[in-house]
């Protein structure tokens, strides 16, 4: 189908509309391509949310070696089992059995109560409970360490308070003199370190980032692979024609992924009764801009390499580890400087900072204003660059069809 020359605003709109209509027809005849910008992203977001829907892991199995067999050791065991995060699953007779249990990951940790536990405490000396934890499983061992520390601290405080009462100190002053200066911990906003809010909320945009760059690379790259560039852009198109055609084509991926992203963002915040102190609306806007940038990155990868396969390889290389470099799990300031540079060059790092500021830290809007605007500028530049690349490709049919 030949294109009308573009020399008016009406012409530009026609080019966009033609490309958008052509894309609809293509998507209708290609269920896989339609799926990858509609129900596959929706399902993947649901799956991610579902994985973390418990919020905080409970009843992680731990083992127990009780060499003391006393009222005090039984009290400690009861305390441990009563903690929501822990479950005393196995009692081991000795250290060797406990080690086997840890090695096979039957339990994630073992609490060992020494044989002279009660005697030591009664003599007024300091007794030690040992926690052997599987540090290869970082989350598990972190949660267990925190809970066991709290339980033992409670037991210890009880013993100390009883001893002081015995010495005749009034109960009221005991509490103060036991710990003259206390630390009051205020973890801003994500107070319980709820993983649904912390990890799921950060992983959803990471997933959409992969999908969006894939979509950009796929929709542009497939025209090159299938040698259908002329049908899409017309023969010897002008710069404006190509730009309009690119916009009309990519618009559908942006719409599909943006709607899924909006639903995911609103679902995980308001939908789950979480009303962040910052602006969900601004985060949502930032997400749309971030998705536009991701799609533009994919389009540029395809038009610059003129190979769908290479563009998808680049997509994998940039977007799949973006979460690891994003600073959510492991902070950027603890990375080597080269990795810090790479991390700061990745758009995910910047988007997720805005989301953290608005959803988790309750920062004022002014703090998060600049990033989405920069991303908008970057998206425009990348779209222009891929337009240039495509225009050059349009004149050289011999370079189409690379696999």
């Amino acid at each position, binding site marked *: 189908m030949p294109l009308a020359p573009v020399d008016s605003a009406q012409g530009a709109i026609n080019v966009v509309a033609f490309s958008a209509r052509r894309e609809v027809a293509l998507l209708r005849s290609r269920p*896989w391509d339609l799926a990858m910008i509609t129900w596959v992203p929706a399902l993947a977001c649901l799956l991610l949310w*579902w*994985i973390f829907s418990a919020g905080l892991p409970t009843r992680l199995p731990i083992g127990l070696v009780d060499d003391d067999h006393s009222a005090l050791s039984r009290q400690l065991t009861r305390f441990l089992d009563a903690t929501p995060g822990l479950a005393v699953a196995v009692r081991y007779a000795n250290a060797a059995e406990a080690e086997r249990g840890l090695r096979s990951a039957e339990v994630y940790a073992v609490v060992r109560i020494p044989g002279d536990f009660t005697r030591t405490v009664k003599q007024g000396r300091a007794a030690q409970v040992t*926690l052997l934890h*599987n540090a290869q499983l970082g989350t598990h*061992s972190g949660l267990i360490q925190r809970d066991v520390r709290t339980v033992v601290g409670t037991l210890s405080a009880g013993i100390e308070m009883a001893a002081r009462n015995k010495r005749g100190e009034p109960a009221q002053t005991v509490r103060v003199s036991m710990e*003259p200066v206390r630390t*009051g911990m205020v973890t801003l906003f994500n107070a319980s370190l709820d993983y649904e809010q912390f990890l799921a909320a950060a992983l959803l945009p990471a997933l959409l980032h992969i999908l969006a760059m894939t979509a950009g690379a796929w929709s542009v790259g497939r025209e090159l692979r299938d040698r259908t560039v002329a049908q899409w852009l017309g023969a010897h198109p002008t710069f404006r024609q190509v730009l309009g055609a690119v916009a009309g084509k990519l618009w559908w991926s942006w719409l599909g992924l943006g709607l899924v992203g909006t639903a995911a963002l609103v679902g995980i915040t308001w939908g789950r009764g979480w009303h962040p102190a910052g602006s969900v609306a601004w985060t949502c806007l930032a997400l749309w801009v971030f998705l536009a940038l991701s799609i533009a990155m994919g389009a540029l990868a395809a038009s610059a390499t003129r190979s769908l396969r290479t563009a998808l390889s680049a997509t994998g290389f940039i977007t799949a580890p973006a979460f690891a470099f994003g600073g959510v799990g492991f902070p950027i300031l603890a990375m080597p400087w080269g990795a810090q540079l790479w991390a700061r060059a990745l758009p995910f790092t910047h988007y997720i900072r805005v989301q953290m500021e608005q959803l988790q830290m309750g920062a004022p809007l002014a703090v998060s204003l600049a990033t989405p605007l920069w991303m908008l500028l970057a998206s425009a530049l990348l779209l222009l660059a891929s337009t240039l690349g495509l225009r050059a490709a349009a004149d050289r049919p011999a370079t189409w069809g690379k*696999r």
Partner: protein
Amino acid sequence: MATFARSWWNTLQAVWADKGVLLLLVIAPVLYGFFYPWPYMQQAVTRVPVAVVDLDHSSLSRQITRFASANPRLDVRWVGGDLHAAQQALWAGEIEGFAVLPQDLKRHVVRGQSAVVTVEGDGAYALLNKAVLYGFAEAVGTVSAGVEIKKLQAAGQGARQAAASRNPVGTQMLPLFNPTEGYGSYVVPAVALLILQQTLLMGAAMLVGTWVEVGQHRASPAQWLGRIAALASVGAMAGLFYFGWEFTVQDFPRGGNPLGALVLLAVYMPAVACLGCLLGVWFADRERSMQVLLLTSLPMAFVSGFSWPSEALPWPLQGLRWLIPSTSGIQASLRLNQMGAPLGDVAGPLTVLLALALGLGALLLWWARPRGAGVRPAL
């Protein structure tokens, strides 16, 4: 047997001749071996920038500030009296947390009233938050213990007894298998198995998808077995690269049960190769495998149970996750390579992998059987 061997060799040659497949099967695992552990090289979070808001200006508050500055977890960037400025600096990312030493801190302590130092950490970033909270808690705790022990000594207890009666029961933490509790040592050995799976899945599906496009994928069982063996052996080479070289160079916990690790590769790689070939037959398109599989890494990592405890997964996922080879692969590899478990302890995951390999392999052989296989195939 000759058909099997010829098919094995031909497939290796096909992998070598196809730039895209070669990139996925050979170059990508090596590249990711360097690239993925890169951010975690330093393993631990130290010297996190923080601030102290000192509203007391007493010898006690200065002592707490000194202890905080000396704490290896913290880097006290500034000490001031402006709470608002500290909050702004936190939002701007200049600091990751701050402690507020309240007015009359010392006066309260001297009078035997309780005093509270408030620590604000940034809960959005778990590791930073932990460093800030623990760092300040250690500093305040040390100062607080000093005050209390002095009081107990004043009440007539000996220094050691005072220390014991202050904390009658302590907890000794013994980290096993990853003794330094390094972040990279925890994440990378598990993710390695996922990288091995994803690259082999995409590479195999790309190769087979290309064959489907030109109608060359159908083959006899012996030929298919040769193809699977070829793809699995390339995958196993990448696996050896990770288990041997990569874990050693990065100084991760390793080598717990090397023979067991070889057995794992011998079932993991065929299972993944069979799944990859099946996906290739299904997609029937050279590039589709990358388009569809790129996004799967994230959910696969979090259902495998190494980072997010499987106990916290919804119960249907607790079962379904075993259909993905990486779940068994990660579980078995951590036990064998990092924890040094005997082979018997990973019988469960290895059986699942074997069942997957056999099940997926049988499905593949049937689905991509030679056309007209109902008739006796001409040999």
